[in-house]
């Protein structure tokens, strides 16, 4: 485990945590962006260049912006009058802690003695492309369809319904 990993993990987790606990929604969105960036760097460390850049492009370039827009459109940039946590926050916290405990226990238990690849896999972007239009062409098409449907759906869901109202 290199120190770089610890730094990146710290950035990611701190970003994630800040996103969950901060008061102002815009700050949460910016914090979650930091977490996304940390994850992208983790991917880079894992020699997954393509995914890392895709992560930045999609999450920082698009999802974060979407979140920010949604916050502004729902007046989320103002501080809420009541608390930011729901009434049953304690239950949620307990559940999350339990989930983490189970996951951590499973990870630690199951990895004992499992052999692990340590050599850096030689993967070119060309291979990813070939795979995408070769073996994974069907999922690719389905994802394309899904994205189109989602875009249309999002537009319709968020559209002004002028004619219907008047």
């Amino acid at each position, binding site marked *: *485990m290199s120190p770089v990993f610890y730094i990146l993990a710290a950035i990611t*987790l701190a970003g*994630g*945590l800040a996103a*969950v606990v901060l008061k102002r*929604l815009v700050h949460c969105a910016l914090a*979650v962006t930091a*977490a996304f960036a940390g994850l992208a760097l*983790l*991917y880079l460390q*894992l*020699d*997954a260049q393509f*995914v890392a850049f*895709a*992560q930045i492009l999609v*999450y920082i370039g*698009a*999802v974060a912006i*979407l*979140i920010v827009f*949604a*916050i502004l459109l*729902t*007046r989320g940039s103002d501080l*809420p009058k*009541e608390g*930011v946590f*729901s*009434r*049953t*926050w304690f239950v*949620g916290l307990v*559940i*999350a*802690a339990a989930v*983490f405990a189970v*996951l951590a226990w499973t*990870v*630690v238990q199951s*990895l004992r*003695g*499992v052999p692990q*690849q*340590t050599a850096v*896999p030689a*993967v070119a972007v060309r291979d990813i492309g070939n795979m*995408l239009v070769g073996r994974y062409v069907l*999922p*690719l098409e389905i*994802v394309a369809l*899904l*994205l189109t*449907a*989602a875009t249309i*759906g*999002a537009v*319709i*869901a*968020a559209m002004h319904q002028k004619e219907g109202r008047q």
Partner: protein
Amino acid sequence: MNGFASPLAGYLLVAALLFAIGLAGALTRRNAILVLIGIELMLNAANLNLIAFWRFGPHPEALTGMMFAIFSIAVAAAEAAVGLGLVISIYRHTHTAELDKINRLKG
């Protein structure tokens, strides 16, 4: 603790913690957008798992984990778009994005 010290375990633990944080956020916050942020964090944690498994797993040249991650990113983007579109449309109806107040089926 052999398993704990291996690189894969480190990534998996980070992923698990991130997942838990996301889950906690989704479960404890009032605002619908924050819930979506939590869900995004959980999805990202899963992606980290996928990449880590691809990197340290037996057949990296098959690219399975990476492909899953790529598709997951694409689906997550679609999910975010639809989810936020829904939040905005709910806000239009109820003038709030606080989940505690959106508790009726009737708009």
